[in-house]
């Protein structure tokens, strides 16, 4: 009997029309970077160059912020709220219409499996615009007083793990609340943001309401430090988040920071094991583990630990690693050589500190950046791999004896973004959810997102919330606070 091998089932690249080079999107037009510098964005699965991207420096950012300010004062702040909502609806519909194209570009630029960009990233991005479109003319119910006002010009910096989705988390609420934006996508994944610029044109969005500038960390810092920015919204590492907090201290700028995490995924003895194993896999291997809320610390009740680990290893052997464009791929490429190096560095401390490494057997492609799904057992709170965010497909497995100990270990971290609880007992779930210090808690599921649900962290996982009414409020102020 021959085995049921799945023949390759690649999504077509033809639908993605990627230009050879991209300029900055300022004032509704693509404009050249003033100094003419550029950088390449590559496909991390093949290391092929996808496009040349303009590199924005201080002068370009100044132009973008000035353009956004003028669009805010002259057009966007004067437009009736209902009209603003119409633009958001239009953007949402265009994203749905062009979903396949966006999914392909996202996968090529980011390395994530096409199944995920097609079924998760792009539909959720459209959902964020639909959700916030509805808010545009109902801001007085957002909880910031009866006459809420926009903040003005918002600088937004997004990460490379969910490029279009993070863009939508940032831009949709900002525009619904009446702000204009200057957004910087990550250096390794600028393409869907630039494609989104085309969507803004297609939707007839007034020039300058959305500006997209591309570059690296220096570009980001210049945006943060621009004096005419009213708010910074950042998603990324805790390290950079702290730097932003320092640089905006003693200014009038407000900030939302979505930072790192080291989420505990707690499996109690009375859990549905098969579904818990699915949840563990989804928690850490979804998007190659490049997820700030990934369930990267598995806490197993000691009396079921061996059984669950055995089931988990069997399940991990089924994970299909490889070509992200193949519709059957479960785990794609690591986003960059730099990230792969970082994942390996921290993982190696696991070996050095005496944890037991196990990786699923899989053939990794020779080109591109790859990492087999990996778990470490025998991990304790004192291990670096139990404390630091790895941001890759690497799971640390710890055990606990009692529910109280599970909570204590789960909370014993500098982070507090998310947590998972697996139990068939409702009372235990509610009890644990009350005790866990994390912004998002999933029970009997993991990595579920909805635009109506606020997302954000405790402690070093960040400030503020994104999504829902709480996220929207971060882009509004009550009238009394506005400087006359």
């Amino acid at each position, binding site marked *: 009997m021959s085995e*049921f091998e799945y023949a390759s089932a690649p999504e077509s690249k033809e639908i993605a029309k990627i230009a050879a080079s991209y300029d900055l999107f300022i004032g509704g037009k693509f404009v050249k970077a003033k100094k003419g510098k550029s950088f390449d964005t590559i496909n991390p699965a093949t290391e092929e160059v996808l496009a040349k991207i303009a590199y924005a420096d201080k002068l370009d950012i100044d132009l973008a912020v000035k353009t956004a300010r003028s669009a805010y004062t002259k057009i966007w702040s004067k437009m009736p709220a209902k009209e603003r909502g119409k633009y958001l609806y239009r953007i949402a519909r265009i994203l749905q219409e062009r979903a396949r194209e966006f999914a392909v570009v996202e996968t090529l630029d980011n390395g994530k499996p096409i199944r995920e960009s097609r079924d998760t990233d792009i539909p959720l991005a459209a959902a964020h615009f639909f959700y916030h479109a509805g808010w545009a003319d109902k801001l007085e119910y957002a909880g910031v007083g009866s006459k809420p006002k926009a903040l003005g010009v918002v600088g937004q910096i997004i990460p490379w793990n969910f490029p279009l989705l993070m863009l939508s988390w940032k831009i949709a609420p900002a525009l619904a609340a009446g702000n204009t934006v200057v957004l910087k996508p990550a250096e390794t994944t600028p393409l869907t943001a630039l494609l989104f610029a085309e969507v803004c044109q297609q939707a007839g969005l007034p020039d300058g309401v959305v500006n997209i500038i591309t570059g690296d960390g220096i570009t980001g810092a210049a945006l943060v430090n621009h004096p005419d920015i009213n708010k910074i919204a950042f998603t990324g590492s805790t390290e950079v988040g702290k730097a932003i907090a320092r640089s905006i201290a003693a200014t009038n700028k407000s900030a939302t920071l979505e930072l790192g995490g080291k989420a505990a995924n707690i499996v109690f003895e009375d859990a549905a094991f098969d*579904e818990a194993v699915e949840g563990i896999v989804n928690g850490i291997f979804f998007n190659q583990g490049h997820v700030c809320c990934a369930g990267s610390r598995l806490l197993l009740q000691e009396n079921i630990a061996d059984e669950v680990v055995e089931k988990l290893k069997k399940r991990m052997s089924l994970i299909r690693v490889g070509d992200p464009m193949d519709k059957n791929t479960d785990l794609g490429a690591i986003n960059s050589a730099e990230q792969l190096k970082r994942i390996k560095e921290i993982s190696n401390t696991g070996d050095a500190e005496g944890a037991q490494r196990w990786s699923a057997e899989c053939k990794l492609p020779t080109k591109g950046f790859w990492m087999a799904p990996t778990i470490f057992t025998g991990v304790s709170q004192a291990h670096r791999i139990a404390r630091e965010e790895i941001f890759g497909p690497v799971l640390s497995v710890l055990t606990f004896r009692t529910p109280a100990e599970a909570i204590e270990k789960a909370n014993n971290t500098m982070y507090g973004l998310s947590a998972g609880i697996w139990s068939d007992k409702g009372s235990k779930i509610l009890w644990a959810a009350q005790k866990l210090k994390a912004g998002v808690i999933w029970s009997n599921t993991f990595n579920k997102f909805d635009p109506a649900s606020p997302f954000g962290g405790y402690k070093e996982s960040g400030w503020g919330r994104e999504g829902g009414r709480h996220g929207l409020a971060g882009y509004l102020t009550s009238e009394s606070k506005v400087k006359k």
Partner: protein
Amino acid sequence: MIVDGSEKSLKDFLDDLPPVDQVGVEARATMLATRSIKTTSKAWAIDMAISMVDLTTLEGADTPGKVKALCAKAVRPDPTDLTVPSVGAICVYNDMVKVARAELDLIGGKHIPVAAVSTAFPSGRASMEVKKQDTLDALNAGATEIDMVIDRGAFLAGKISQVFEEIKIIKELCGNKAHLKVIFETGELVTYDNVRKASFIAMLAGADFIKTSTGKVAPAATAPVVLVMLEAVRDYFALTGLKIGVKPAGGIRTTKDAIKQLVLVNETAGPDWLTPSLFRIGASALLNDLLMQRMKMRTGHYASANYVTMD
């Protein structure tokens, strides 16, 4: 012996099984349904699915003529293409077993087993004496596979040992003459926890196969139900070293549906189960869709329904 057959030992065993989370198992089945099976793997899957079909007719209007026609179809599903494998079995009521066996033997289908539905199929509402006689009739007529139904009433009333005992009795009648498939009618058991429990009761009582449904009640072989049963045979194998087969029946009508079932098998019980001796699909209309898809793969275009035989 894992259980001694007493109510208590069965209950203890079943209570130790982990629960099934409805949302989680349905999400897993939905995800596996997105697998894209193309080209060479699709061709392989179509032939595998054909060889797994339990070609079924279970109508009050069944006649010898109808059953004989079905036998011809079972042996040579596509008379214009002899590379098409024959099906897994013919499945009929016990009074048609003799006709089916004789016809198959006559037309070159000696290798195709005849399965008989039994134990007062489909409701299972009869005395044990009747159920035994039903099974004996089928065995005497030459059935080598018995598809019995469990007593859902007893199961839902909590009389687990009664369900267990009935299966054991029928298994003893089958002896080494026939394979026993145990039908749960999952549409009447309703919850996934019940499906998992029924699976283990049947396996512990000696089932060779566990089967979703009679085909007379909807919903029948839904993907999550089959997934739970595949997990059960996988776990039972880990526990005992015995490989028990799975047979979804009812509602699988298209090639797409059948391939989704094979994906569930491949990624749950594992590739060892991808054989007609461990996985069957109870169906009637499915076979023609498989044949049409096979023709399409060979010729590159779809033929009209008149190019496959109607029986």
